[in-house]
């Protein structure tokens, strides 16, 4: 730092009543712009749509009179809504454990030093940073029944031509979505678990090895408890992402065939932007927020634990 800068600073810090006032209120002044934007873009629209959710606005009907809880009552009778929540739950319940398991196995493989390890890790994380819409598009090309390589590879192993309409056939749409999802996000789990595993106390591991403890005993008694907080954080971050899954499915199946792979995010989108059920969509949005608030609270508690 230059002397002139320091002098300049000292002059300003002691100059006048205005300077003092700014200095005293600085903590609030520098928080204000960020909070203002968050309120403007985050909170204000939410309040607005809360009001809308108690009205009955559709594309054709611009009536702003209040209808009470009608839209919310409607939610309970909406079979397609509950089906979409079910689809979301299925994808989350299958993809999350798979990602965790694959990520853990990958981390185990790379935990000990080996030449070229850095390069492998750098390459393996690439899927995670790709835009999910690109990931979906890529797998759509991969799965293509005529020009995609997957059918070709399967045919090679099966010894006969295998033709599967991955993104259309009801039996294969879920596997297709889950393969793409697991491909993109297992490396996320891998990275976090690799970091966690490297922080496990080495002296404990060595002591256990001297005592002749088996691999699984060491895993259960030392390794898993040590990395449990990271597993919790990783699962909760991924869990939240999976519950709001949209991009990959949009790129792969667009919710089809029919509405078979429609998740809650897709359904909300359809209601709001192709059916133009304005008030009803606002009600769905609040249902989603209510559901996720529960998970979010959990996440935050865990994150505080892991800090």
């Amino acid at each position: 730092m230059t002397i002139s800068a320091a002098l300049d600073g000292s002059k300003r810090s002691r100059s006048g009543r205005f300077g003092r006032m700014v200095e005293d209120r600085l903590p609030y002044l520098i928080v204000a712009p960020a909070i203002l934007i968050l309120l403007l873009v985050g909170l204000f629209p939410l309040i607005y749509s809360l009001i809308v959710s108690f009205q009955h606005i559709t594309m054709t009907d611009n009536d702003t009179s209040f209808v009470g809880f009608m839209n919310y009552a409607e939610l309970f009778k909406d079979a397609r809504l509950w089906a979409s929540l079910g689809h979301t739950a299925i994808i989350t319940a299958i993809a999350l454990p798979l990602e965790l398991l694959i990520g853990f196995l990958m981390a185990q493989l790379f935990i000990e030093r080996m030449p070229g390890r850095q390069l492998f890790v750098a390459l393996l994380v690439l899927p995670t940073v790709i835009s999910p819409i690109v990931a979906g598009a890529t797998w759509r090309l991969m799965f293509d029944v005529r020009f995609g390589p997957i059918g070709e590879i399967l045919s090679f192993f099966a010894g006969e031509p295998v033709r599967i309409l991955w993104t259309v056939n009801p039996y294969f749409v879920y596997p297709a979505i889950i393969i793409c999802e697991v491909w993109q996000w297992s490396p996320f789990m891998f990275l976090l678990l690799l970091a966690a595993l490297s922080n496990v106390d080495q002296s404990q591991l060595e002591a256990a090895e001297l005592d002749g403890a088996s691999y699984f005993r060491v895993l259960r008694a030392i390794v898993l408890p040590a990395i449990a907080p990271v597993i919790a954080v990783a699962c909760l971050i991924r869990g939240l992402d999976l519950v709001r899954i949209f991009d990959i499915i949009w790129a792969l199946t667009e919710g089809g065939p029919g509405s078979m792979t429609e998740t809650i995010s897709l359904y909300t989108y359809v209601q709001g932007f192709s059916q133009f059920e304005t008030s009803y969509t606002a009600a769905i949005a609040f249902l989603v927020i209510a559901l996720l608030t529960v998970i979010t609270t959990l996440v935050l508690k865990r994150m505080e634990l892991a800090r």
Partner: protein
Amino acid sequence: MRLGGVPSRKTRVLALRYLGAAALTLFFLFPVYWLFMISFKTPDEIYHVPPLWVPSHIQFSNYYVLFKDGDVWAIANSMIVAGVSSFFAIILGTLCAYSLARFNTGGDNLAMWIISQRMIPPIAVVFPIFLVYVYFGLVDGFFGLVLLYTAFNLPYVIWMMRGYIVDVPLELEESALVDGLSRWDVIWKVVFPMVRPGLVATSVFTFVFAWNDFIFALVLTRTEVITFPVQLTHYFGGQSNFWAKIAAMSVLGTLPIFVAVTMMQRYLVRGISLGAVKG
């Protein structure tokens, strides 16, 4: 060490690990490879049955078409929107983070509220935002998108930077204050340089999040300010003769991210785990 042709157990284990590593790399990178290869193929090669594993030669006509048809404007739009919003999010977010970290402004509640903003699913907020944007005429414009991505990334920046600032030794700032620097100068001349690596990493991830976003852009763009993920989905549907464009556009939208993230490798774990895991 053992003499003769029988490899030791250690060598065999290492060989197995390399085999596993190679298999994993094949699985996780093959789709990326495929995408790049399609972008270099001629239409005849793309629609060849059975699929060709390598194009006969590398040619860039698929990219040329993107430039000729003006589709690359979507990349430019993404650059502007992600760049400008990241800039604002970083400046405003870091200042806010400093206040939270050093003065504990608003206590734990404010910090919790801010990070909870990050957890709200985009689909739940995008609809209300859309209603408000329509009312104010902000749909399909740079201002609306930049404002949205700034707000969307602020909680992340605040949360991450709070972590980095807490790591700066308090004594440094105190001695600067004793030397007569104002608090404002301390922030810019002492704290910012100290957290610069974290700041750069956070900027990169902020940029990536805005760059990769699809759902906000899908709802809030029409024809003027289309970002690259939205442009990509325009090629879907109906005929498959847009494969060349899908692949080339995907590569253009992915390459910068690969470069940026590879440079930020050291900060990757902390960056994607919201600071919960310090890799």
